């Protein structure tokens, strides 16, 4: 490294810390708001240091909430996020295996069909997708939350790219030894894809957890709300004052699981990000 002088290094750290503080400020403020009383917030300015109402606010949010206990919404979000991540990974592993390791009629047509789904996020086709889901009677259900969001091809592409790098000798050896394709899949392809699967899981978990528009449309029953869309439902309509401490406690609870996943699996996360986007 060139130019490592004392003053410059200090200045670099100062800039970095300032940057982190600015970026962190909204989260800090939400945390502070979740530990003080309502009167302290509605008489501005609110304090900038945490108060002593942590347990009161968080237990109020978790066990009674506004429309529905936040613990229910957390479970719904968890089911949805894990369902989307696992569902997408499973169907993509299978279809990528079929596309890479078999020659069958219509293979290219299927490949392009899957490819096309890359192009259209759910936001664009909400009205007709809503009608389909309503037609199946899947409104207010986990399957309605999960299935429309796994109809996308990013994961299939990622696995296809990866399978193409698996040495041909392995498949050849498996064939010579008389292993069936599925045996080869379970004993060789799946174990080799472990890192990719884990990295993709992190990305898809965040994607599923952070969904907003789709749960907003199809979960009219508060019992089925996910936490990310449920926060907005906690604001009163009209001129009533929002219950800020509970809403902010819910916001903090809504970001904890994805933050744990991202920070805890940082290496996998960054790898998944770079793989799935490029």
């Amino acid at each position, binding site marked *: *490294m060139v130019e490592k002088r004392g003053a410059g290094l200090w200045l670099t750290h100062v800039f970095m810390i300032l940057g982190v503080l600015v970026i962190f400020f909204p989260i800090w403020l939400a945390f502070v708001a979740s530990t003080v009383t309502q009167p302290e917030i509605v008489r501005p300015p609110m304090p900038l240091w945490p108060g002593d109402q942590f347990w009161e606010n968080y237990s109020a949010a978790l066990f009674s909430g506004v429309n529905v206990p936040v613990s229910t919404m957390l479970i719904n979000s968890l089911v949805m996020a894990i369902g989307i991540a696992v569902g997408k990974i499973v169907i993509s592993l299978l279809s990528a295996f079929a596309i890479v390791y078999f020659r069958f009629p219509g293979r290219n047509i299927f490949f392009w069909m899957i490819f096309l789904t890359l192009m259209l996020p759910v936001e664009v086709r909400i009205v007709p997708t809503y009608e389909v889901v309503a037609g199946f009677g899947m409104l207010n259900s986990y399957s309605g939350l999960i299935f429309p969001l796994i109809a996308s091809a990013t994961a299939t592409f990622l696995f296809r790219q990866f399978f193409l790098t698996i040495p041909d000798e392995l498949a050849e050896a498996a064939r010579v030894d008389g292993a069936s394709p599925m045996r080869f899949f379970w004993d060789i392809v799946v174990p080799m894809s472990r890192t990719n699967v884990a990295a993709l899981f992190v990305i898809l978990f965040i994607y599923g957890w952070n969904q907003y528009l789709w749960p907003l449309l199809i979960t009219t029953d508060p019992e089925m709300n996910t936490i990310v869309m449920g926060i907005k439902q906690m604001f009163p309509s009209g001129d009533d004052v929002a219950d800020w401490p509970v809403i902010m406690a819910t916001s903090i609870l809504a970001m904890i699981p994805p933050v744990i996943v991202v920070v805890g699996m940082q290496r996998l996360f960054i790898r998944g990000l770079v793989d799935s986007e490029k």
Partner: protein
Amino acid sequence: MEKRVTFRGWMLPALLIAPQVIISAVFFFYPAGQAIWQSLFIPDPFGLSSQFVGLGNFEFLLTDRFYRASFLTTAVFSILVTLCSMIPALFLAVIADRLIKGSGVYRTLLIWPYAVAPAVAGVLWLFMFNTRVGVVSWYLGNLGYDWNHVLNGGEAMGLVVVASAWGRISYNFLFFFAALQAVPRSVIEAAAIDGARFWTRFWTIVLPLLSPTTFFLLVVNVVYSFFETFGVIHTITAGGPQQSTTILVYKVFSDGFVGQDLGSSSAQSVILLIVVGLLTIIQFKFIEKRVHY
């Protein structure tokens, strides 16, 4: 690229590929086809029958004052979000790259906001700028500036831009940081020996080497601001005041679900589909180019 060694048979692969094809057909192709089909009709006010109007919905949209305004709003919004998320990210990444020790700690702290859902980010920023209880709006008031994003369209736009860009800074930072770490040290050192100072090196060597990453991030951030910012806008402004923050995706939602104007909403979906298609082509053209690097 193709595999040399493959397995025989067509039953098994058909079975393997079936789940994805069925899910794509039911939840993707059928709805997408429906969107295109419905865009050619105008349903009557009671939803009992609909009349074929050909491209009438599109003609109406393209001459509609509100739709054109929404296009302009989307353009302004996505340009601002892209700039406000990329420039600070590049700045932070350049600083972090100068550190040998400690950059890991900063990186861990900086990726937090990425995990925060856009809708939650919206709530956090709404809380800071709330006209009644917001801390920032209170201090602004003390400084003599009367912040009110509920009435002022420009302030509303500023707030949704900042709230949308906030989480993206983390994302862009990660990509810029990885790209900066990949810049060969020998090139930098050679330039330093030749007497090039930090900023000269940055403009003439580092920035050009970052251009593939920068271009990639440009496209990705534009796509993000088109589609994934719905949560931010819905929580903070709900498209208002006077539609000043109604971006195209928000309009598809508000016309289709709130206004129940299915023909127009579907036509808007089709127009968005074309926009996404173009963006995707640009992205893939770019990836193809990258392969030759």
